[in-house]
């Protein structure tokens, strides 16, 4: 491996007589362009940056530490770099290209004003350890975001340092653990619905808890009776998602919270689906003690091909004292300051469970999210969740006659519509529909999650899809559903029109090749 296009495959054309002929010499097909690795571009030992020569050599003592040879990495000139990465970018689907209906990911439009604001030198070019009075505006922006997150959720405080959603989950659970230890109690169990996202039990395990699973009822909600009957002095609390991973509102959450609190436990809410209820429901009103918010979901900060994220955690009065460092605090006179290790005793944060990461949090995501929030305002954010829920219901009703929707008869969904693979022809699966959807020009929906529905397809359009865009998507989905029910064999080899066909993931796992080795001796 590691040879470009080792098979020598080039685009081919089937002639009228059925013979197959190569179409181009380059291997490119019009605007569909192949691109080798940077290591294959003959730039080993070169550099594409103009750097002034130093005036002198290194200090004497450095000589025994010096590298023997530069790292074996190529340096490309600007034209080569621009071309390389531009060509690569064109092999990606993105929100900017079309609908990205991934359930529970909230792939909404990423406003460009966010990018402009984040790049203002006063935000982008400041060091976290500058004297605090030289970055007062940064602390004010953080405090303003905090006020919004607290107001929208009806909670008491927010911890801003977690770097992503899973990191926020960990923060919430560590607050719970700290609170329990502060009471001198020992509670080792956390209850997690079986429909939960994988990060939930993984996080609970890392926070030192044992996970017990609570089943779902036939109407797709967590079984409240089973949950409440399991509560006891060994249960630290429950991790619940609301709306849940089936796209349904957990009607009994307040009752569950009351029962959990009565038994001395805490309620962690996974806020991944906050887009369904922002501006309409406050998790604080439902008894939640901690909830992480994915700024890269509900608040439009870009997904960037996998990150960076940001996972601030809103906290109840009960858990606020345990929030991790550092903390931005607003004084009575309105001034804002940063509470670091030095200040914890004097500012009433002595019970903080400690520091979760270096510096102060994902400032670049704070400025983007605040820009988005200020743009929408309290009325706009309410409209966001209403449109998100309306769009999802529109899809649900438009597809429920061709795909089985396990909970559609019982009532509306929230911001995402859930279908199963019931009714597909024998040998046909959700995966085939997903790959077929790629040929139709869309990114597939979330597939095979939640685990509680067989062959699950979870579709979240978000509020930034137009009606016309939804209709186009629905038309493609109807066609694919019908083809899968009829057993159209061409689905099995989809996608056909993409830069790469289905990739051999088994080979990648059996014989991992994780770095380029083309220059190995």
């Amino acid at each position, binding site marked *: 491996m590691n040879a470009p296009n080792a098979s020598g495959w080039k685009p081919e054309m089937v002639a009228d007589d059925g013979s197959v002929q190569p179409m181009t010499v380059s291997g490119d097909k019009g605007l569909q362009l192949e691109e080798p690795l940077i290591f294959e571009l003959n730039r080993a030992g070169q550099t594409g940056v103009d750097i002034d020569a130093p005036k002198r050599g290194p200090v004497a003592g450095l000589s025994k530490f010096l590298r023997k040879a530069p790292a074996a990495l190529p340096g490309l000139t600007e034209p080569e770099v621009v071309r390389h990465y531009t060509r690569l970018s064109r092999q990606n689907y993105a929100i900017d290209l079309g609908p990205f209906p991934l359930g529970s990911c909230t792939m909404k439009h990423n406003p460009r004003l966010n990018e402009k604001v984040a790049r203002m030198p006063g935000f982008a070019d400041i060091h976290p350890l500058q004297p605090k009075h030289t970055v007062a505006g940064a602390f004010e922006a953080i405090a303003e975001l905090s006020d919004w997150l607290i107001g929208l959720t009806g909670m008491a405080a927010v911890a801003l340092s977690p770097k992503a959603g899973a990191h926020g989950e960990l923060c919430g659970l560590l607050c719970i653990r700290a609170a329990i230890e502060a009471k001198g109690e020992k509670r080792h169990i956390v209850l997690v619905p079986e429909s939960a996202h994988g990060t939930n039990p993984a996080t609970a395990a890392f926070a030192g808890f044992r996970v017990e699973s609570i089943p779902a009822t036939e109407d797709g909600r967590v079984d409240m009776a089973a949950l409440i009957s399991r509560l006891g002095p060994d249960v630290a609390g429950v991790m619940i998602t609301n709306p849940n991973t089936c796209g349904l509102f957990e009607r009994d959450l307040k009752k569950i919270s009351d029962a959990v609190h009565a038994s001395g436990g805490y309620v962690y809410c996974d806020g991944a689906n906050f887009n369904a209820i922002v501006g309409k429901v406050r998790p604080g009103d439902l008894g939640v003690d901690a909830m992480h918010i994915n700024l890269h979901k509900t608040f439009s900060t870009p997904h960037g091909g996998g990150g960076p994220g940001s996972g601030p955690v809103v906290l109840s009065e009960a858990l606020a004292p345990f929030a991790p460092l550092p903390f931005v605090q607003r004084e009575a006179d309105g001034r804002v300051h940063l509470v670091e290790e030095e200040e914890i005793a004097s500012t009433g944060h002595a019970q903080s469970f400690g520091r979760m990461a270096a510096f102060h949090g994902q400032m670049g995501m704070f400025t983007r999210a605040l820009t988005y929030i200020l743009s929408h305002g309290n009325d706009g954010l309410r409209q966001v969740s209403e449109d998100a829920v309306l769009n999802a219901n529109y899809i649900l009703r438009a597809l429920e006659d061709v795909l089985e929707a396990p909970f559609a008869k019982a009532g509306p969904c929230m911001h995402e519509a859930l279908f199963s693979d019931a009714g597909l022809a024998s040998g046909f699966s959700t995966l085939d529909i997903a790959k077929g959807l790629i040929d139709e020009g869309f990114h597939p929906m979330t597939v*095979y999650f939640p685990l509680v529905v067989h062959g699950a397809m979870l579709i979240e359009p978000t509020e930034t899809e137009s009606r016309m865009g939804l209709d186009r998507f629905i038309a493609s989905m109807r066609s694919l559903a019908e083809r899968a029910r009829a057993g159209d064999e061409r689905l099995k080899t989809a996608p056909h029109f993409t830069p790469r066909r289905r990739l051999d*993931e088994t080979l990648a*796992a059996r014989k991992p090749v994780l770095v380029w080795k083309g220059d190995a001796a």
Partner: protein
Amino acid sequence: MTRYFTKEHEWIQVDGDTATVGITDFAQESLGDITFVELPEAGRAVTAGEAVAVVESVKAASDVYAPLAGTIAEGNAALDAEPELVNTAAETDGWLFKLTLTDAAALGDLLDEAAYKAYIAEL
């Protein structure tokens, strides 16, 4: 030499007090392409029902349980380079580990071939 089975889809071939354990053809079929097998270390003492190995495919990781109490004698070293043996030869060359039994009497609790076949027919 007799072959026993469990409801967790393991087969056990017993020779004296050594048991060779693997997963059944039914199991490998439902797991899909096997990409990696995590085997227990020789010398480890295990109890019946304890998770001792993991069989991985691209999208899943399945625990394999010790059918009986004993000490691990060896893991199948061939699986390191060729995990696909578990797919192609699950009930022969694709064995997972050998166990020195400490409680051979417990073999009586396991299924025989007919019982296992009946069990999977119902699934």
